[in-house]
């Protein structure tokens, strides 16, 4: 099947689901549809695996227009990595949240489509449109029964739309200077872009992914949203910002990016430090997890800014590790009654997955996080930024303190309650993924290295 189906099937199913609102609600059919809506793209994405692995780039021109005029979708190793990761986790989160309202599922599928669109498209403006689909749906999904969630959503909306405005402005200038919007064509022209364009994109994607002075929407939106929403916001939506950075900065803004390397690395380090200290000072579990996302994003950003192949590999592993572990942690947090850190109570079936997620976040050996930490620190030492390796390791100690504190409280007490299996299984799967990927990283090392090669580091 063509890769376009990865993008349109979720939209289509979401449309059918919204039509079904006219009739009486059939929960089984609705659940079936919403799972297949993500499963089919997942299978399509898997079916491209062997081709992608051999280094092939699968191209699809929408409407048969040439890349100069029309929109091109391309699946290379980097897109595959993100698309596969996000679809796997999205299915799990969907299973976790099957008991939610049909509106939730409609928006969720829309969001899935938008996300996949960003990952596949090679047209900057198209990327903007998909970004808007993603953002608008997440603005709505953040809203929960809680009163504060409206404020959080509004905050997210304001900052998010500033980000998209900046993105659009940047797109305009790129179009003005080059005359095309296709990323591949622009990068093959090999002309440095204006600094201001680069900064527009940096600020915009910085807001989307939560780099330090632009992170303000994250803690509220992530902590107040319902647990599955927090899970994909933190685990995936932030990573989409990072993906676009990777895609744009290593191609269109290559020269600008490498010129400002030092600044960006420092920015990443500041994000890491602030994120970890702020997480340390939180008293609410979900807020703590949200700040820890900022910390991790900082590490990822730092790793990608090194510009070397090792750095990119480290960043990709870190993205993988953080996505899986954070989804696991947030899904666990949905099974805990009181989220105040001192009153945490849970059953072993929550506390053990939480613990595994936590050690993966810290980056302890035999978890996926360690592979990421390993490569990132190696890249830091390699580019003789040993200080930054120190920063990463130091903040991983801080994250050890706050995450293990929470997980210690979870181990300490137990509470009696029933949780349906549809909610337990995703948690088990994500937590065992943390370990499996940590022990057998060779499973995915091919595709990660290939993805790093497609971008091409400094050397």
């Amino acid at each position, binding site marked *: 099947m063509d890769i376009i189906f990865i993008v349109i099937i979720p939209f289509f199913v979401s449309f059918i689901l919204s039509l079904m609102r006219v009739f009486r609600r059939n929960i089984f059919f609705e659940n079936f549809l919403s799972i297949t809506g993500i499963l089919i793209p997942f299978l399509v994405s898997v079916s491209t695996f062997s081709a992608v692995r051999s280094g092939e780039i699968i191209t699809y021109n929408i409407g048969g227009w040439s890349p100069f005029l029309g929109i091109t979708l391309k699946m290379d190793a980097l897109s595959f990595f993100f698309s596969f990761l996000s679809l796997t986790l999205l299915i799990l989160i969907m299973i976790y949240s099957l008991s939610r309202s049909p509106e939730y599922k409609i928006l969720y599928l829309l969001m899935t489509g938008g996300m996949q669109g960003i990952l596949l498209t090679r047209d900057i403006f198209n990327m903007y449109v998909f970004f808007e689909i993603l953002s608008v749906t997440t603005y709505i999904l953040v809203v929960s029964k809680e009163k504060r969630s409206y404020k959080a959503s509004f*905050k997210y909306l*304001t*900052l998010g739309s*500033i980000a998209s405005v*900046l993105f659009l402005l940047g797109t305009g200038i790129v179009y003005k200077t080059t005359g095309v919007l296709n990323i591949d064509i622009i990068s093959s022209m090999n002309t440095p872009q204006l*600094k*201001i364009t680069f*900064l*527009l994109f*940096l*600020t915009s994607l*910085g*807001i989307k992914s939560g780099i330090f*002075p*632009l992170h*303000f*929407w994250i803690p509220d939106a992530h902590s107040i949203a319902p647990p599955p929403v927090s899970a994909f916001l933190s685990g995936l939506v932030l990573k989409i910002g990072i993906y676009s950075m990777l895609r744009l900065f290593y191609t269109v803004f290559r020269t600008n990016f490498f010129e*400002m390397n030092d*600044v960006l690395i420092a920015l990443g380090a500041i994000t890491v430090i*602030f994120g970890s*200290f*702020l997480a*340390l*000072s*939180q008293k609410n579990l979900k807020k703590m997890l949200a700040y820890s996302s900022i910390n991790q994003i900082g590490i990822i950003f730092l790793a990608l800014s090194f510009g070397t192949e090792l750095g990119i590999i480290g960043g990709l592993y870190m993205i993988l590790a953080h996505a899986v572990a954070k989804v696991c942690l947030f899904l666990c947090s949905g099974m805990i009654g009181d989220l105040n850190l001192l009153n945490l109570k849970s059953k*072993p079936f929550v506390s*053990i997955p939480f613990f595994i997620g936590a*050690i993966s976040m810290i980056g*302890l*050996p*035999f978890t996926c996080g*360690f*592979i990421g930490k*390993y490569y990132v*620190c*190696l890249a830091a*030492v*390699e580019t003789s930024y*040993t200080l930054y*390796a*120190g920063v990463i*390791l*130091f903040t*991983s*100690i801080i994250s*050890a*303190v706050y995450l*293990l*504190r929470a997980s*210690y409280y979870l*181990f*300490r007490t137990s509470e009696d309650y029933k949780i349906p299996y549809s909610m337990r299984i995703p948690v088990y799967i994500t937590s065992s993924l943390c370990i499996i990927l940590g*022990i*057998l*990283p*060779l499973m995915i*090392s091919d595709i990660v290295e290939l993805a790093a090669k497609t971008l091409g580091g400094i050397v």
Partner: protein
Amino acid sequence: MNIIFAVLFPITGALIILSVKKSGIYVSIFVSMISFLTVLSVYPEIFNGEEINSSIRMIFDLHFFVDRVNFVMLLFISFLNILILVYSIKYIKKDNHGYYPSLLLAMGFTLGSFLSGDLLTFYIFFEMTTLFSFFLVMYRGTERARRAGFMYLIMCFMGGALILISAFIVYLQEGNYDMENLNGISSLLFLLGCLIKAGAFPLHFWLPEAHPVAPSPISALLSGIIIKIGLYGIVRFFMTHEVIHWITIIAIFSMVFGVILALFQNDIKRILAYSSISQIGYVLLGVNLPSMGIAGGTFHMINHAVFKSLLFLCMGAVIYSTGERNLKKLGGLYKKMPYTAITCIIASFAISGIPLFNGFASKAVIFDSLSSNILKSIFLFTGGGTFALFYKLNRDIFFGKLPDKLRSTEEAPKLMLFPMIIISAICVLIGVFPSTVFGTIYAGTFNFWSWNHFLEAFVSVIMGIFIFLYGEKAGIFDIKEYDTDRIYRRFTEITCSFCENINKIVSTDLNIYVLCVLLFFIFLYFL
């Protein structure tokens, strides 16, 4: 059988226990026995002078390595593990905290770190041991235990981070993680990391907090075995490196301050923890000397594992029977708990280096390799201090007047006495036949029974008596302690207030956020 199974069995056991949700003591003992047998099964190869190398391919190689030196350590450690588990049957009465899984995981990863053949593997197992022993330290769940646990975690992870950076530096210089490639800055970082884990002097403050708060079998594991991970790293380092002078200074400070601070304590487990620091000093002093010294240091490290775990188990028995851990409130327990008293006295003799006990043998080797007279006299002084310390400990617990509260005290249960008796038998056996163990580590021969060594032990004892009498008279045993942990506490306070403040700063309103975005843009533009 492949040596890696010695590590894998305890871990698998822990996973089984976790999945069946039973207390799992028998599974634990079973897997630890298998792990011991696995270690034992490589004896013929090691005895023939072969070395065992095996590795697991992850993205990096996990490289395991056994030679004579760590074979002996592994043998002792895996055996002590079994005994500690047996001891726990009675000591841990009700367990709903996952005691056995975390104990098994800690034990398994500890074995792993003693098996590790390169820096990265060492780091990996080092971190994992820290993680699970952290849960063991916090097992009691009190406020004090929690503080101690986090102090332990932070310090040991700090050590781990230093080791990891040193490993990367080596990797980028040489393309592998071999320990012999450590040099300059990387060896400094590596040694610092190991010294933190080992609890050497200026970085020791977590040790007297963390070791005493845990239940006694855990203290035995921590003080007897887990701190040896750091020392193992240092031993491996010095097997391929020249003498480093500042290590000697650290060793001397650890020896002297450890024993002096121990003399000030009144909590029976804190005394042992401080005395560990002092004994670590001996090992450091030893391993930093050429050929024979390093064997002596290693030997002392093994001996310390044996008698320090015995001491902790004895104190555990005392606490189990009396419920009291203040030295001032104990006394006259000799009649009530004869076996505990005897084993404790054997352990005390061993640690103070009395002939025919294992401490004597290893101290003799280290003493013989010392060259300067200053070092010799410090060595003797510390030996004296140790003797005074354990004289004081035994006198206050087992002799003197029995307090009224303890009249109904009974001897500890047999299942607890059994491991203690076995370990004390080991102490005596090594003491009488030291060359069986020492011969495996050291190629040459060494005469343990020369007059010099008896004289050394004798001078130590005399000095110890003097120190004790002087201390008793001057009342220095009641001095309020002063330790380096103030720096750590100050640091944590600063961190907390810093966190609070930035938390206040960043939570403002939407206008400011938009302004931040604008300023961010402008700032970067003009940068």
